């Protein structure tokens, strides 16, 4: 009998870990512990160190979109009186808060809300609304928009004061105490996770990339919800090791030849993930640059540096810094073109997208294309329009390659 136990691939480990984190929250709720709803870029170090279970409505929105429930839930929210111009994640969440049921995915209801506006300033209104509707306290960490290329000491002080106050309030709400030695430990583990996640996605610069860029969208959830846990750190280290091995072998999880490399700008169209991926994959186009997935990693040493790290979330930064991130990423990962998702849900992303595309094109010299879509509302996406734009981009990239060879 062969007693060799095969190691599970990292993507399976990550999926199981994501399920476990979700189940842990349900179990905690069952035990009578206080559970929170939390914004995706809220400093998770606080809740992880205090042992406070939280779940993420944004992740739920993405998952519901990917599982085909986005339109139904959005339409329900619109029936409640919410505008279809609002973020589809928020509409799905408002619908769930009212229905208290969602066949695609459910999360335990909150005893408190944790909002951090570094991912989205409009989110404050979303969470204020939830606080009123569900009659639960809302704790907000306000990250000021970074109008410079670096985060100064005043901002750090302002964020730190809120961080400390948030801990004090959470101690009252949950009855759990912050242990500073535990916080230090969680910060160290979070660094391990973030560094491993960045190492993994960093292998996109290899030619060919060892993985299909859309894998980022599948693997990033744990980077968002569980990076302060040792299991996440180990899973990301395993993922990075697997990619490293593939680079050495010249292998890839991308199916077919990687003929073209692109930057994909924006959140995935979760409701149309398969079509958007297949359209690219069938043409030999691989996503090898994206600021979205790597954004769920935070590098710091001290507590003050932690504050600054949360100020560097791309959506909270000035246009110039956001542009530079994308240009650097495109150059480092040697892209042949770029696709910009005009995400109708996201006012921040769609608001500056055309100018971002224009300046990106000028600075990198690579062809670009923008398409209309949405992160979780499939009504904003047209397959034929997406396909035509991708075809034309591919034809330009093909001609550019021919010229470069000639």
């Amino acid at each position, binding site marked *: 009998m062969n007693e060799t136990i095969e190691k599970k691939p990292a993507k399976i480990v990550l999926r199981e870990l994501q399920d476990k984190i979700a189940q842990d929250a349900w179990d905690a709720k069952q035990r009578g512990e206080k559970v929170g709803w939390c914004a995706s870029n809220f400093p998770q170090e606080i809740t992880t160190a205090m042992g406070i279970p939280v779940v993420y409505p944004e992740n739920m929105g993405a998952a519901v979109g990917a599982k085909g429930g986005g339109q139904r839930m959005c339409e329900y929210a619109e029936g409640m009186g919410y505008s279809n111009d609002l973020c589809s994640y928020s509409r799905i969440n408002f619908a769930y808060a009212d229905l208290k049921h969602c066949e695609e995915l459910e999360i335990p209801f909150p005893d408190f809300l944790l909002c951090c506006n570094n991912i989205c300033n409009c989110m404050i209104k979303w969470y204020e609304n939830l606080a009123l509707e569900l009659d639960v306290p809302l704790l907000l960490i306000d990250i000021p928009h970074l109008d410079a290329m670096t985060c100064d000491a005043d901002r750090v002080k302002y964020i730190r004061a809120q961080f400390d106050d948030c801990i004090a309030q959470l101690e009252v709400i949950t009855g759990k105490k912050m242990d500073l030695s535990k916080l230090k430990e969680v910060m160290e583990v979070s660094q391990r996770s973030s560094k491993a996640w960045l190492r993994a996605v960093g292998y996109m610069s290899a030619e060919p990339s060892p993985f299909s860029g859309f894998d980022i969208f599948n693997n990033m959830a744990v980077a968002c919800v569980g990076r302060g846990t040792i299991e996440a750190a180990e899973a990301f280290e395993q993922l990075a090791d697997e990619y490293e091995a593939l680079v050495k072998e010249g292998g890839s999880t991308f199916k077919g030849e990687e003929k073209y490399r692109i930057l994909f700008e924006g959140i995935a169209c979760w409701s149309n993930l398969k079509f958007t991926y297949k359209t690219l994959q069938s043409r030999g186009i691989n996503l090898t640059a994206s600021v979205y997935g790597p954004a769920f990693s935070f590098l710091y040493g001290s507590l003050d540096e932690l504050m600054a790290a949360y100020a560097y979330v791309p959506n909270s930064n000035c246009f110039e810094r956001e542009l530079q991130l994308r240009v650097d990423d495109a150059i480092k990962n040697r892209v042949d073109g770029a696709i910009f998702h*005009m995400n109708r849900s996201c006012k921040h992303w769609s608001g500056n997208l*055309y100018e971002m595309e*224009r300046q990106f*094109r000028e600075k990198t010299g690579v*062809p*670009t*294309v*923008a398409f*209309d879509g949405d992160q979780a509302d499939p009504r*904003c996406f*047209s397959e*034929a*329009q997406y*396909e*035509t*734009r991708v*075809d*034309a981009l591919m*034809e*330009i990239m093909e*001609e550019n390659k021919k*010229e470069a060879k000639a």
Partner: protein
Amino acid sequence: MGDVLTMGIDVGSTTSKCVILNNGSQLIASSLIPAGTGTSGPQRALDAALEQAGIAHGRLAAVTATGYGRNSFEGADHVVSELSCHAIGAGALMPGIRTVIDIGGQDAKVLRVGPSGKLESFLMNDKCAAGTGRFLEVMARILELDVSELAAMDEKAAGKVNISSTCTVFAESEVISQLAKNVDLHDLVAGIHASVAVRTAGLVRRLGVTAPIGMTGGVARNAGVVRALENELGVSISVSPLSQMAGAYGAAFYGWNKTKE
């Protein structure tokens, strides 16, 4: 080298166009059927072009499909996006062109073409079809005109009635309310054309106004829209008599190039 006949078929959203070229330059046949993808239009356009050329299908060295319905057209040797084909076709029909404005049935495109005729960059309208050929068809219907009559109406306009709505449905209501006010019909048509021009000019400016500029697609036949665009952009715009066939022309040219590889 003998005659090499190549066909380009542009299966659009509202029309099907077909062109046959001899050795990539001599126009042998062209046909246009006012029925697009999902209808008998593509086959009828193909049959009409073959009949006009007096040849059997087997004489064609290559068939290249383009347009909205390119992927559903059966029997193509090559399938190429309409953006590349319009760039190639416009370059062949209007040599030296650097910017191409193509307004079709349900989308508007602006193409930047390099000095060698290569498509360098492009922008398209977003999901909304305001300012496209369909928009003009809807407006013509309310005015009880054929879309082909709009240009002549515009030419006689003394002013223009402002149409501010972006949405086709709301613009339709706006035009109806203007009709109720008994505004001059010529000025109303000029206003409709101006609203298309403003929207399209925004796309051109986003890409950068690089002269010389040419226009392709069915709307290029409407001199009123072309004039309104010239006014809006402050540059002259070339239009070939075959502008509406530019996509099919480019596809046939593409096929000819492929036969040489």
